[in-house]
């Protein structure tokens, strides 16, 4: 074979130089070429009866596999897709939801395993800032809510319910600036310049009850597409809330937040998808069990770590 020829030629060249090293080298080159060289397929004589039996078995096994694949596709594909290819029977089943959610949970567990409180997300310069659109789910709220706005904290270690206005938040806490990327579940992203207080500082100032592992972050001012109240609520694990780049943002591009971007206070959690970055937060409740999540109830993931 080709490789053997080459090996032979190399050996021939090496003969005049009597150095031991080169001999060793050529031997190892030959060995390498032997190892990587293609080997002839060995021909075997088979009795036709055995061959027929094995072929039949393999065709049956792979045929059964193909049927199972088709059944699996019918089971997993969305009803809309199935009816488009002419299957109008209702194939929706609770098992399908259970199975897809199971797969989603595995992915969430992977995301949780990847998370580290010490791993910072990349930051950018002001030259790299890109436009950020108003992606309010539904209509943008009427800005009149801003004048009476208060942030309420529940589930605290003190057992009290605390209300804070934006002035007292800004006086009490130091403001951190960061230019980070916000990534939407839809696939687009934007690099934006934010400033706000660290969620970790708020957690230190108003510690949650000892058994709390989650925060329920909600906005009561959100509206649906036709302008009716549609409160937005989201679950956030406290490990992520304590990340040094998780902000309760008050400023965007050096200016106080506008109503488009969730004035006067929004969550900015760059290690999560944009849908966790609740605008116009009105209440944070610390709880022991994972709270409900607006988008998880609509088929999206719950952890959403990126």
């Amino acid at each position, binding site marked *: 074979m080709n490789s053997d020829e080459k090996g032979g030629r190399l050996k021939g060249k090496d003969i005049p130089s009597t150095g031991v090293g080169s001999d060793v080298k050529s031997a190892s080159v030959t060995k390498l070429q032997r190892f990587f*060289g293609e080997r002839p397929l060995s021909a075997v004589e*088979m009795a036709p009866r*055995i061959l027929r039996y094995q072929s039949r078995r393999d065709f049956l096994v792979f045929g059964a596999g193909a049927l199972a694949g088709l059944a699996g596709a019918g089971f997993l594909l*969305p009803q809309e897709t199935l009816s*488009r290819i002419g299957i109008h029977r209702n194939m929706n089943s609770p098992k399908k939801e259970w199975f897809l959610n199971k797969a989603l949970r595995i992915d969430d567990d992977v995301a949780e395993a990847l998370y*580290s409180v010490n791993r910072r997300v990349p930051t950018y310069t002001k030259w790299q800032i890109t436009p950020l659109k108003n992606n309010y789910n539904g209509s943008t709220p009427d800005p009149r809510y801003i004048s009476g706005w208060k942030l309420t904290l529940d589930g605290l270690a003190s057992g009290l319910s605390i209300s804070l206005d934006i002035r007292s938040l800004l006086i009490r806490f130091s403001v951190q600036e960061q230019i980070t990327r916000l990534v939407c579940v839809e696939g*687009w*992203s934007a690099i934006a310049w934010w400033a706000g207080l660290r969620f970790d500082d708020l957690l230190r100032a108003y510690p949650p009850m000892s058994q709390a592992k989650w925060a329920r972050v909600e906005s009561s001012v959100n509206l649906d597409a036709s302008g009716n109240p549609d409160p937005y609520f989201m679950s956030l694990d406290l490990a992520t809330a304590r990340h040094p780049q998780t902000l309760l943002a008050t400023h965007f591009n050096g200016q106080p937040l506008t109503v488009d971007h969730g004035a006067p206070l929004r969550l900015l959690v760059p290690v999560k998808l944009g849908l966790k970055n609740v605008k116009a937060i009105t209440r944070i409740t610390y709880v022991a069990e994972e709270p409900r999540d607006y988008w998880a109830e609509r088929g*999206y993931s719950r952890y959403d770590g*990126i």
Partner: protein
Amino acid sequence: MSNSTLADCEAKSTNTLPEQPGVLVVRKHHFLVRLSHWLNVPILLGLILSGISIYWASPIYQHKPDPNTGNVDVAADIGIWICAHVPGLHHYSSPPDWIYNHMSLGPGMLALALRLHWLCAYLFMLNGMVYAAGLLMGGGWRSLLPRWSDLLDALRMFRYYLGFPFAKLARRQWLHPLFNTKYNALQRAAYSSVPVAGLLSVATGWAIHKPMQLHRLAAVFGGYNAARVWHFWLMWIYIQFVVPHVILVFADGSDTLRSMIVGWSTRVERSEVVANEQ
């Protein structure tokens, strides 16, 4: 199944039926290679269909909003063009959705498409490991390694394919170039680049799935947005691979297709040529 058990079977069968002549076969594909090959069909189909549904939510190819419709998506433009120019589609209900209705699970189902995409993606990674195990256990990886002679041999194969239709029309004999290897240079290029594309798809997929925790991986591909473009175009590698792959398998005859199911082939000439040379 290893050769020794085959030889045993053969020995037993010749003992019981000594008058029946044997058939010479070569073991071409390891069982795990065959298994992962066929599993790839539904998995890749699921990945592509759900992937295009995900693409719908935020197309990477956009233009300024159309003054009349507000459309920004180039794929929607193609659908509109198709509905306007293909006979029988003039009354299609939603031309901008034509592409997504025919080449994906459908528009407006991001949550479901994402769940299916993750499911298929994990299966795709597991299947890739099964394939790698099959290549290692069956020794098939050696036939996939590119070699320097491929550059010239690929040109010979190109010449063969280009001349083939003309030779057929002129009723002239047109000989297939001879190779004493399992695959010819073009096949080898295709069969070795698709696993590489698979690895890149997985890597770019992780880069856009976890762009913060794996931001160094995203940086390898030029950042988050560039990794999305990579991921999109890698999909086309599978499509442009599969079309000639399927056509040529059927053109080549039943032995090639059968060997991917049963593992053996009756084409022993090449193996003998190689065996004689050694």
